[in-house]
């Protein structure tokens, strides 16, 4: 239990550093919605999600209704349904419902990527370890971004922002190298994601959900996709 917690904290450290940079820009956005640094930090403590919070702050700034704001959150966060569904099968069998719900609180793109790629079953303690280092950084970064504004050179923020995307790459490339099926799904997902982002006005969250539904579905239901299924 303790070892899992410690390993989770170590695994979460690079994510936490990336969060520091991303939430910094989130804090900037929050001030545009009229929030103070402390209010923005509290918002980040309650919700850990970049795209959803960006959309939320934009909605507040634009004076959107509560119902509109909630609906936009559901749409943007739809991909988390798929991620959580994946994690239900990955998490240790004996994990209790409260433990599962605590994990559910922090199903972010990055922690999902690390949790799902963990060897063997995912122990709740490992996930808590990741949360323990990444949530404070998310909150602190939001606070600093709102308080300090654009003091940091933009080029540093850009470079650091890329780190989180690089983590997705680091998770998918090794298995894609070993399995032709995974490689095909990844390439098709990138192609479809690119097409959708170029041709439509879909939010990033909804686009990802659509791509994942269609391509995982195709991989599972098409005869070619089942050939090397070893599940």
């Amino acid at each position: 239990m303790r070892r899992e917690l410690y390993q989770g904290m170590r695994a979460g450290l690079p994510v936490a550093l990336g969060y520091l940079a991303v939430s910094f820009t989130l804090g900037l956005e929050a001030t545009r919605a009229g929030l103070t640094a402390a209010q923005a930090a509290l918002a980040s403590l309650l919700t850990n999600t970049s795209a959803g919070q960006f959309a939320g702050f934009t909605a507040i700034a634009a004076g959107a209704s509560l119902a509109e704001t909630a609906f936009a959150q559901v749409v943007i966060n739809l991909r988390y349904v798929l991620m959580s569904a994946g994690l239900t099968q990955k998490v240790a069998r004996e994990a209790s419902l409260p433990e599962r719900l605590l994990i559910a609180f922090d199903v972010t793109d990055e922690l999902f990527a690390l949790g799902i790629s963990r060897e063997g079953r995912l122990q709740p303690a490992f996930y808590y370890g990741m949360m323990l280092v990444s949530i404070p950084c998310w909150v602190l970064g939001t606070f600093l971004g709102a308080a300090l504004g654009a003091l940091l050179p933009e080029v540093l923020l850009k470079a650091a922002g890329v780190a989180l995307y690089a983590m997705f790459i680091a998770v998918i490339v090794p298995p894609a190298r070993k399995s032709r099926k995974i490689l095909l799904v990844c390439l098709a997902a990138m192609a479809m994601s690119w097409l959708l982002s170029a041709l439509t006005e879909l939010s990033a969250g909804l686009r990802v959900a659509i791509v994942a539904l269609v391509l995982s579905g195709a991989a599972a239901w098409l005869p070619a996709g089942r050939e090397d299924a070893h599940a």
Partner: protein
Amino acid sequence: MPEWLVYNLVIAMTTFLVRALPFLLIRGPIRSPRLRAFLEMVPYATLAAMAFPDMVLSTGNTLSGLAGFLSAVLVGWLGGGLIRVAGAACLAVLVFELIL
């Protein structure tokens, strides 16, 4: 209650519910081979779709974004772990942004 708090509570609640729903509905192992094959592919499809083209576009300069993306793929392919992949991508973006 102040308005900013109401909005952020609503955002927090909806986000949590979306994330918690599958954990509430799916308690045990899924037996259907198709559904299992589906869920097995979800991580790869979601992560690939999130990385591309967003990573390339994230810097506001397609060239530096592309450099970051390609370095990440290359270092990952060569067996570099999370930190090396992320480091390579950051470095590539920095170099491109500062030089070009």
